[in-house]
């Protein structure tokens, strides 16, 4: 986290705010609720209280405006800069402005006012930007559900005002570090030419033309998806990505959920004793799908839901993939090679000659 220079903060804990005007994108009551909930986020972890004024000058004056809106700090039209706020102080200090040219929503369909307001009011209380992609005070917008403050945010605001922590609050997760030498993956899949690596509540997106993987909250892209992904694979012929979490599976067409999903994994013919899929991969050359669970794996013919698992499965991973670990966290298939990930080790495995060709660190695919 970061504070503003000189650790600017309000000198008393009872702060006033006033909403000067409203966006036509939402009902007035929705705006009032979004702002109140955003203030409560910070009140939950500090001794701060927020009193609403309906006239006169408040510490935090909240307004919607577009382009040049009176502070010589113009907005830029739709997207780009969404809002800004001033650090604690007299006059414009604490004031919070939202760009009226944005589409303000109370869900994930456009810019969620509650999330942006919680971020901007963080500034109005003295928080500057955090470089932790999992923090609310990270400069780039991302949609999330649940309590929006991360440990990083909470430490930062409590360094200014002291605090209380409700044990019922579960801070937002800290983003995994891609070059942590012990990094392991939850799942890996291709998605229309890109590689998606899942870890905790985040994913990295690797694109051949982009030297740096881009880290994003899973829920920011797929709000309907649970926090953690166990396994994922792409069937490029059907332009489908299948994602597994617990005993459920989702089918995506690009970033959209396919009708009829999620389904239970047992519809694939897996026994009820299987409670999660550890890894999954589609072998383009044979049209077969492999699902890995604990020390075994299952093989399916081309179409997953024909309920025809190939005969003689499940089989032992150790027997069929000699030289490999007996469990798998994630697996991908590129140009005839299988890439198995287990803990911090990546095995490059030749599917044809049935042997391990190379061993690397798991995060070597993240340019580490």
């Amino acid at each position, binding site marked *: 986290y970061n504070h*503003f*220079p000189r650790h600017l903060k309000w000198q008393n804990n009872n702060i006033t705010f006033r909403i000067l005007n409203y966006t036509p994108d939402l009902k007035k009551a929705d705006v009032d609720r979004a702002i109140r909930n955003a203030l409560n986020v910070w009140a939950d972890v500090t001794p701060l209280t927020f009193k609403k004024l309906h006239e006169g000058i408040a510490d935090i004056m909240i307004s919607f405006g577009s382009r040049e809106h009176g502070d010589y*700090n113009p*907005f830029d039209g739709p*997207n*780009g*800069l*969404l*809002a*800004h*706020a001033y650090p604690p102080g007299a006059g414009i200090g604490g004031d919070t402005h939202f*760009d009226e040219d944005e589409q303000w929503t109370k869900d994930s369909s456009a*810019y969620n006012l509650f999330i*942006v307001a919680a*971020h*901007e009011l963080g*500034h109005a209380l003295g928080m*500057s*930007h955090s*470089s932790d992609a999992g923090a609310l005070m990270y*400069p*780039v*917008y991302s949609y999330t559900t649940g309590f929006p403050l991360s440990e990083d945010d909470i430490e930062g605001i409590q360094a200014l005002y002291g605090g209380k922590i409700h044990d019922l609050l579960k801070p937002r997760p800290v983003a995994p570090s891609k070059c942590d030498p012990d990094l392991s993956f939850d799942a890996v899949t291709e998605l229309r030419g890109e590689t998606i690596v899942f870890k905790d509540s985040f994913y990295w997106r690797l*694109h051949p*033309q*982009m*030297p*740096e993987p*881009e880290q994003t909250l899973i829920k920011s892209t797929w709000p309907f998806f649970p926090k953690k992904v166990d396994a994922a694979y792409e069937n490029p012929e059907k332009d489908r990505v299948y994602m597994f979490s617990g005993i459920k599976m989702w089918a995506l067409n690009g970033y959209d959920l396919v009708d009829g999903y999620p389904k239970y994994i047992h519809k694939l013919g897996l026994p009820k004793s299987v409670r999660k899929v550890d890894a999954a991969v589609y072998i383009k050359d044979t049209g077969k799908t492999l699902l890995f669970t604990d020390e075994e794996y299952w093989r399916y013919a081309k179409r997953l839901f024909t309920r025809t698992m190939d005969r003689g499965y499940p089989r032992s991973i150790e027997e069929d993939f000699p030289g490999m670990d007996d469990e798998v966290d994630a697996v991908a298939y590129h140009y005839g090679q299988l890439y198995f990930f287990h803990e911090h080790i990546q095995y490059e495995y030749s599917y044809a000659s049935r042997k391990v060709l190379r061993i690397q660190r798991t995060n070597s695919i993240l*340019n580490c």
Partner: protein
Amino acid sequence: LPLQSTEKDNRLFAEKYLHRLYGLPAGLQGRLQKSDTFQTKLKEMQKFFKLKVTGTLDDSTVELMKQARCGVPDIGE
């Protein structure tokens, strides 16, 4: 050439971004900033976002600059 105009557009976009959020001095509108000032600020931005600090406008950097964000500067006042 299209490539050239895209590069020029990205450069002007980046200058505006760095001016608003990293304190790059306002250059003459339309004329390109002196490269060492620009490069210094670009490196600050790449460091903040844990990108590879190249000092050049690579795709990852341009992609990140184009994401919707807060208008408060990332460093300093």
